C-alpha cells in the first residue's frame, strides 16, 4: 500500500536543496565581490531577488494547477495549487522582510514606497492572503473550484499590480533598475543563479513534504472510516 518512491524522491530533493543552499550561502557571503557602497548588506540582495522570483514561480505553478484542476476536477491538482500558494506567500513575506532590511540599509527607513518590487510584493501578499480567506469560506468541491478560479485571477493581478506601481513611479522618477539584468559582472551573476536554484530547490522540497503529509493524512482518514464502518 505504501509507496516508497515519494519518500525517496523527497530525500533526493532535500539533499540537493541543502547542498545548493549551503553553496549559495558560502558563495554569496565569501566568494562574491563585495559592493563598494553597501558592503555586506548588499549580499541580502541576492536572496531577496531569488526569493522574489521563487515566489512568482510558486504563484505561476498555483495558476497552472488551478487551470488543470478546472479541467480535470482532480483533487490532487487542487492540492498542488493550494500548497504552491502557501509557499508563495511564505516567500513573499521573506521578500518584504529582506526588502525592508535592504531599504533600511540603503535609505535609512524600514519602508519606502519608491521601490516597485517592495510595494508590489505587499500587494501580492494581500492578494494571496485573500486566497486563503476565500478557501476557508467554502467547502468541498466549491472550495477547490473557487480557489482555482482565484488562483488564475490573482496571478493575472500580479503583473498588473507591478506595472501600475511602476507606471506611477515612472512619472515621478525615471525608472532605473540598479543591479538587475545584464549590467552585472559575471562573478555576481553566477552566485545569483546558484541562489535562484537553491530557492527553487526549497520550493520543491517544501512542496513534496506538504503533499506527502496531506496524502498520509488522507490515507489515515480513509483507514479510520473503514475501521469505523466495519465496527
Amino acid at each position, binding site marked *: 500500500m505504501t509507496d516508497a518512491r515519494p519518500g525517496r524522491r523527497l530525500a533526493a530533493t532535500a539533499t540537493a536543496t541543502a547542498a545548493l543552499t549551503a553553496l549559495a550561502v558560502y558563495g554569496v557571503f565569501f566568494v562574491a565581490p563585495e559592493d563598494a557602497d553597501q558592503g555586506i548588506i548588499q549580499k541580502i540582495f541576492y536572496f531577496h531577488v531569488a526569493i522574489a522570483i521563487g515566489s512568482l514561480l510558486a504563484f505561476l505553478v498555483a495558476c497552472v494547477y488551478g487551470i488543470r484542476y478546472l479541467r480535470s476536477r482532480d483533487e490532487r491538482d487542487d492540492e498542488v495549487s493550494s500548497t504552491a500558494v502557501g509557499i508563495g506567500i511564505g516567500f513573499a513575506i521573506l521578500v518584504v522582510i529582506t526588502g525592508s532590511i535592504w531599504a533600511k540599509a540603503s535609505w535609512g527607513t524600514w519602508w519606502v514606497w519608491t521601490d516597485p518590487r517592495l510595494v508590489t510584493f505587499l500587494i501580492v501578499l494581500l492578494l494571496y*492572503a485573500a486566497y486563503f480567506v476565500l478557501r476557508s469560506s467554502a467547502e468541498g468541491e*466549491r472550495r477547490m473550484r473557487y480557489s482555482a*478560479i482565484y488562483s*488564475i*485571477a490573482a496571478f493575472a*493581478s500580479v503583473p498588473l*499590480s507591478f506595472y501600475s506601481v511602476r507606471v506611477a513611479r515612472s*512619472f515621478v522618477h525615471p525608472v532605473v533598475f540598479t543591479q538587475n539584468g545584464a549590467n552585472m559582472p559575471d562573478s555576481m551573476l553566477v552566485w545569483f543563479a546558484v541562489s535562484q536554484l537553491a530557492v527553487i530547490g526549497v520550493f520543491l522540497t517544501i512542496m513534496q513534504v506538504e503533499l506527502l503529509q496531506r496524502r498520509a493524512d488522507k490515507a489515515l482518514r480513509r483507514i479510520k472510516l473503514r475501521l469505523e464502518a466495519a465496527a
Partner: protein
Amino acid sequence: MSAGDPSWPRQMRALLLKDLRLELRTRDTAVAMVLFVVLAMLIFQFAVGSRGTDLTPYAGGILWATLSLTAVLGVGRSWVPERDQRVLDGILSAPVSRLVLLTSKAATIYAYLLAVEIVAVPLMALFFVRGSVAGDLGLIAVTCLLANLGIAVLGSLYACLALFARARELLLPVLFLPSLLPVVIAAAGAVNAVAGGTNDLAEYRGYSLFLAVYAVIFGLVAYATYDHVFDD
C-alpha cells in the same frame, strides 16, 4: 413543442431590464451608493483636509479612493435579488449562457458606477479642487468609463465567488480590493494628471492605456473561467 430559440441579445436585454426594474422598484442600491460616496469624501476631508491644506493635487486620489470603496458596496449588492429572493436556481436552470449572465451583472455594476460618478465627480471638483475643472471633465469622464470596465468585470466575477459564503460582506472586500489596487493607482493618477494642477497629457494617456489593458486582461480571465463559476 418547446419552440424556444434563446438568443443572447434577447436574454441580455431581459436580464438588464429585470435589474433595472428591480432597482427602480426598491431604489435600495443606487441611493445608498451615492450617499456612501459623499460620506466617504467627507471623511477624507475631515481626516486630512481640516487644516486648510490645498487638496487639489490629491483630488483624483480621493475620488478614486471613495469610488473604489463604493464599488465594493455595489458589487456586493449585485447578486442580492437572486440570492435573497432565491431565484438563482430558476435563472441557472434556464438555457442562459453563464457568460451572458456574468456580462449582464457586469453591465449592471457598470451602470451603478456611472450613476455614482455623475454625483461624485462634480463633488470632487467642488470640495477638493481649487480652480476650474470644467475643461477637464471630458477627460475625467473617459477615465471613469475605462476604469469602470475593469471594476465591473472584476466585480461580477468575484461577487460570484463570494455569493455563497457565510461572511460574504467581509469576504468580498478582502477579495476584491487587492485586485482593484492597480485600477485605483491608474485612475487616480489619470485624474490627478489633468485636474491636480499640472496638466500632463502624456501621463494621462499612460494611465488610461493601463486602464484599458487592465479591462482586457480581466475580461480574458473572466472569459476563461466563467463556465466554472457556477456548479455546472
